[in-house]
């Protein structure tokens, strides 16, 4: 059993907007890099919310890091979150704190000792290539740099999987590529990555496994990028 997360017939319905996900099943192995692709509204963000247990499936079961969506208790959710790294399109940094304070924040909530936090924050910022900008505030950083800070924060608690919700969506092509390379590097060091994107070119170039969502259904799970191109064109 090297699955780190497994979805079995997961559906999610909202009382107002209807079905967001229907009958999704897949698993992810330790250290794997998987894309999650689909048009906006296809259910990518909903799926990521379920994975972080911000919401529960309406039907089916989701298992992640030993927790099941059927039995997890509210007070266990913070414990799960510390084993996940979450990255967003809009970075979600605290604007009134420096880069290093933003990263340190993720460690402080776990009650880690200060000396250890300082050491680790320095290491994380070096890892994402921002050691020279540790004391900069988010507004002093470019979009790509802000996303690096957000990634450093996501890595702070040594997650086994990084959930990235369109992490390159707000970035220009160069920064986009650099962030993708950074995520690949992190993946190479053993952290699994699930990256939601609608950047088809990135997927076709990389030849990695991707999950394609369409109107809440999982329509493809594999590496057949040619098919993806056809699908995306066909549905446009």
């Amino acid at each position, binding site marked *: 059993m090297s699955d780190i997360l497994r979805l079995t017939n997961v559906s999610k319905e909202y009382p107002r907007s209807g079905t967001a996900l229907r009958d999704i099943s897949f698993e992810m192995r330790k250290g794997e890099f998987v894309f999650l692709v689909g048009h906006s509204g296809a259910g990518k963000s909903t799926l990521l919310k379920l994975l972080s247990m911000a919401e529960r499936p309406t039907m089916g079961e989701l298992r992640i890091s030993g927790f099941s969506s059927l039995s997890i208790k509210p007070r266990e959710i913070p414990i799960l979150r510390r084993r996940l790294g979450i990255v967003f399109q809009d970075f979600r940094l605290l604007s009134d704190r420096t880069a290093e304070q933003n990263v340190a924040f993720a460690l402080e*909530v776990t009650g880690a000792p200060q000396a250890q936090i300082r050491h680790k924050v320095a290491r994380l910022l070096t890892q994402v290539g921002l050691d020279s900008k540790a004391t900069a505030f988010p507004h002093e950083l470019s979009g790509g740099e802000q996303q690096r800070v957000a990634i450093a924060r996501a890595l702070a608690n040594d997650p086994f999987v990084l959930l990235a919700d*369109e992490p390159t969506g707000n970035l220009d092509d160069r920064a986009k590529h650099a962030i993708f390379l950074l995520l690949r590097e992190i993946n190479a060091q053993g952290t699994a990555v699930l990256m939601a994107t609608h950047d088809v070119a990135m997927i076709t170039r990389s030849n990695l496994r991707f999950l394609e969502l369409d109107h809440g259904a999982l329509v493809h799970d594999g590496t057949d990028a040619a098919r993806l191109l056809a699908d995306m064109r066909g549905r446009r």
Partner: protein
Amino acid sequence: MRLALREVYLTFTRAPLMAMLGVTTIAFSLFAFGLFGLVAINIKSALLEIEDRVEIRAFLIDGAKDAQVEELMQGIKKIPQVADVGYVSPDSALQRARVELEEFRDVMDAAMLPGSVELRLKEGARDPETVQMISRRLQTYPVVEEVRYGREWVEKLYRIRNIAGITGTVLGSVFALVAIIIIGSTIRMAILARAEEIEIMRLVGATNHFVRLPYLIDGTLKGLAGGAIAAALAWTAVQLVSKHLMAAQFFAAEQVMLGIAAGGVLGLVGSWLSVGRHLRRAWRDA
């Protein structure tokens, strides 16, 4: 805990104006409530003082016998609402009259003045009905010739008291409600300003307790500070009134403590409610 205190400190240093605004609003709403309380306690003590003078006087027939007077006295002592009762003999009535009405001292002699029985009622039994009931009861004794009490006066006093009591309760509740609403929204504003921070804290795995603690401390401190300022303002107001208008009472020390503590509790409850709202919400849509 240390981290929570740091967060509280950060909130203050980052948005001192906001924090001051919060404290000031709490202070003023508590102050309004406090002023009202002051008016209420002052009216109450004034009324108590006046009420204390409510008394019933039963004049006795001429030549009342000692036994009859004794019987009357015993009867009165059995009435539960009576606080104390005293017999004024014709002689002592004359003494009293001579002192009080000096200019007539020579024309008065004992035969002119009847003996009487004076009684005072217990607190809470000075309403018009009780006064009337007791005076009717006194009239049943043959030795009693006439019963007097300030009938109109008692009724008027009682009406004032009722009006004061009702307005007190109504205005007091309104002020308390306003104070709670203002404090709640002040804290909610502060939390809305930090909604993003709360959300991020939760994303990186902060427990609800960890998220909540700084806000609870913050709310409580602001409430206490607001309460203290309100108490100081109220005290100043009382001093001013006493100096320029009339002697006014201030709250007892325990009441002041209670008021400040109430500020703290309001702050605590307000922040608990407001932060709880955010803790229940799932993360916002990307």
